[in-house]
């Protein structure tokens, strides 16, 4: 048995979840087509975080009620062994794509603004080098590294927000809630993809975070802090760039630090970007580990490392694929962005609803 799960403390789990939420929302929210009719990103982050938290709490409650130690046990308990395997596989695949999507944007930013003369494939090698060991070391190493990295990453975002202060103007947020309900719902779907995976990670590694009850508590804290921070971040971006400008930008977060007035901040952009890259790589590795663990639990494999290695390579391949200038790739990315969150919601709500029809059963403490 080499699932590399172990157990992590509350601080490690919260910081890991915050790190993934904030870095994902900073790079995933704000695709160019999202700003055709106005900027709603600050609102969609809020609704996305709220929806994710509600769905997560329902699933965590269902797990507690049925005495399930992790998400795979909930699948099996609610739907039976074979459907649970399929749901487990689907969850793993969605987690790999959830890890890859923000990395596509990060790699694009690195390629476009820093390593202009280098190919994306050369940069992707370094992504793989970072992802592979992080994924293989497992949850404990990831959690404790997140405990160290989370504060510097948040501080880097905070510094970015402060640097933009002289340029903030409220008129750039107008038209307020432009685009209406449909646009808000679509963007909420993307925001769910930023906040739900790390909450699901807590459920997948249920035993590693001391049970579903504790996971629910930690998830609540992490979403409140990470969601609040992300709203602040999106407001800052919205007050520096109007929706028309955002509609032409690829990486508003990095553009913001590139645009600060001269002086000592001149070279700060690259330092901040690399701190964010560290955070995003760690977050992606955590999601890949969760995908590997879910896969192993679904198919009753005893070693997480082969799956982890394969998923890291698949993720890097997806990141490279995301840079191909083909229409069907763009379509696939758009579909994944818009509907992955919805699929994850389904993967949590469906077994939870089934389990609520069953009699309450609690797991004895020693099994947690």
């Amino acid at each position, binding site marked *: 048995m080499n699932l590399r799960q172990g157990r992590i403390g509350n601080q490690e789990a919260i910081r890991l979840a915050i790190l993934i939420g904030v870095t994902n929302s900073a790079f995933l929210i704000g695709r160019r087509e999202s700003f055709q009719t106005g900027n709603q990103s600050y609102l969609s982050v809020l609704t996305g975080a709220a929806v994710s938290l509600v769905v997560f709490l329902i699933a965590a409650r269902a797990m507690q009620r049925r005495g399930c130690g992790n998400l795979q046990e909930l699948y099996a308990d609610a739907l039976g062994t074979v459907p649970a395997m399929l749901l487990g596989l689907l969850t793993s695949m969605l987690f790999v794509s959830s890890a890859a999507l923000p990395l596509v944007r990060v790699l694009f930013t690195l390629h476009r603004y820093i390593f202009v003369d280098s190919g994306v494939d050369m940069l992707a090698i370094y992504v793989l080098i970072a992802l592979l060991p*992080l994924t293989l070391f497992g949850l404990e190493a990831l959690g404790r590294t997140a405990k160290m990295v989370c504060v510097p990453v948040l501080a880097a975002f905070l510094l970015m927000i402060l640097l933009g202060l002289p340029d903030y*103007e409220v008129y750039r947020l107008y*038209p307020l809630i432009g685009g209406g309900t449909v646009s808000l719902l679509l963007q909420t779907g993307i925001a769910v993809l930023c906040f739900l995976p790390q909450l699901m990670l807590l459920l997948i590694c249920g035993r590693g975070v001391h049970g579903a009850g504790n996971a629910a508590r930690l998830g609540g804290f992490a979403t409140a802090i990470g969601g609040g921070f992300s709203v602040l971040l999106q407001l800052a971006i919205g007050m520096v760039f109007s929706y028309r400008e955002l509609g032409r930008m690829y990486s508003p977060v990095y553009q913001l630090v590139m645009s600060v007035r*001269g002086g000592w901040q001149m070279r700060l952009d690259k330092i901040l970007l690399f701190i964010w890259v560290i955070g995003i790589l760690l977050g992606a590795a955590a999601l890949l580990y969760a995908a590997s663990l879910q896969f192993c639990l679904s198919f009753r494999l005893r070693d997480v490392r082969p799956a982890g290695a394969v998923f890291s390579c698949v993720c890097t391949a997806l990141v490279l694929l995301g840079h191909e200038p083909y229409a069907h790739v763009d379509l696939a990315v758009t579909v994944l962005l818009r509907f992955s969150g919805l699929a994850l919601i389904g993967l949590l709500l469906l077994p939870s609803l089934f389990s609520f029809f069953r009699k309450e059963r609690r797991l004895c403490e020693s099994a947690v």
Partner: protein
Amino acid sequence: MRIRCLMLAALLALCACFSGCLRDTGIDQYAYVSAIGFDRGEKLPYKYTCMLHRIDYQSGQSRLAGAEIVTAEGSSLFEAINTLSASLPLQLSFVRTVLLVAEHSLLSDDTFLRQLINTALPSLFIRYNASLFVSLSSAEQVLRGLHTELDPGLVKMQENFTTYSKDTGLIPMVNLMTISESFADGAFDIAAPLCGVVSDSPGGMQDSVGEDPYAYLGGNLHTVTDMDTEIAGAAIFSGGRMVGTLSGQNTQLLQMAVGEFDRAHVRFGSAQAQEIDILLKRRSKTKIILSGGERPVVTFQIRIAAFIEQPDMFPGMRAEQAEEWIRSVLEQRYLRLYAACRSLGADVFGIGTEMALWCNTAEQMESLDVKAVYAQTEAVFDIDVKLTNAPDTSAIE
């Protein structure tokens, strides 16, 4: 476990460092373009002047060596870069470009700036905080005029221009991000700092408001310095086209009205027809309130503190009378300035940004004709002056 975590953190940091060495080009093989000047070419449409710096690797320190100026002509910026690259043994890098100087005749229509923003800049990766200056002389002369024995470096110089703008109000500052926003939104027009080299009448440009016997304009100042280039005044634009100039004195008023102003010595004509300077300081942020209707009215609430350094110019005048006199002079000058800008169609006061607050949907925003509303908008300047000293006593008393 602690060691493992530290190893992981170190590995992440190393990965970030490794990716700096994807090619075998050393940093001393680059020539960093600090400033670019744009002029009309003799043979080809454009003439480009680049101020280059190199890393001084021979000194063993990572500092920039002295500047060198090179020029090339081309039909586009890319062509000029290719020509330059072929004649230089170095690779050109634009990541440190902080200053763009455009000769004023290039800006008679919006083509040049649009091309610069839409095509050249996103491809050359010039940072969006690079400042734009408009030159009344040729841009090449201006860049050569910036080169002095002091050689503070252009990044430092850009920082000093920003401080100069805040502390004197004699120039506005505009960077590529603001220009890009102005083009994308059309909600306001830009005002760029004016520069020129010392000559009798560079570019033959005059202040668009007029009525000032000694208008501070770059290249027209009665100064002698080590640097030939002078910077004072503003070029005002309407939709990316330069439509006029403002003297340093009028730029001070503009900067005060748009809130980009901390303090300045403003020249007033005294009651005895003698020129006096009064130090004005911002008391609070300027408020701009736009009311709608058939005849929109924009109100600028300007709160300033005044310090009279030559109180003997106001014999027998009480503090309230002096405050009222300063207020009325400022109001008259503001009304003249506003009328001049409005007649030129240059919304440098940013009234269009206030119109954005009227829009609830993107359709409303797109259909809003900012220029048409601006042409109808009357301005009220609600100026409140507080004297920090009495005019009938000296500062020491």
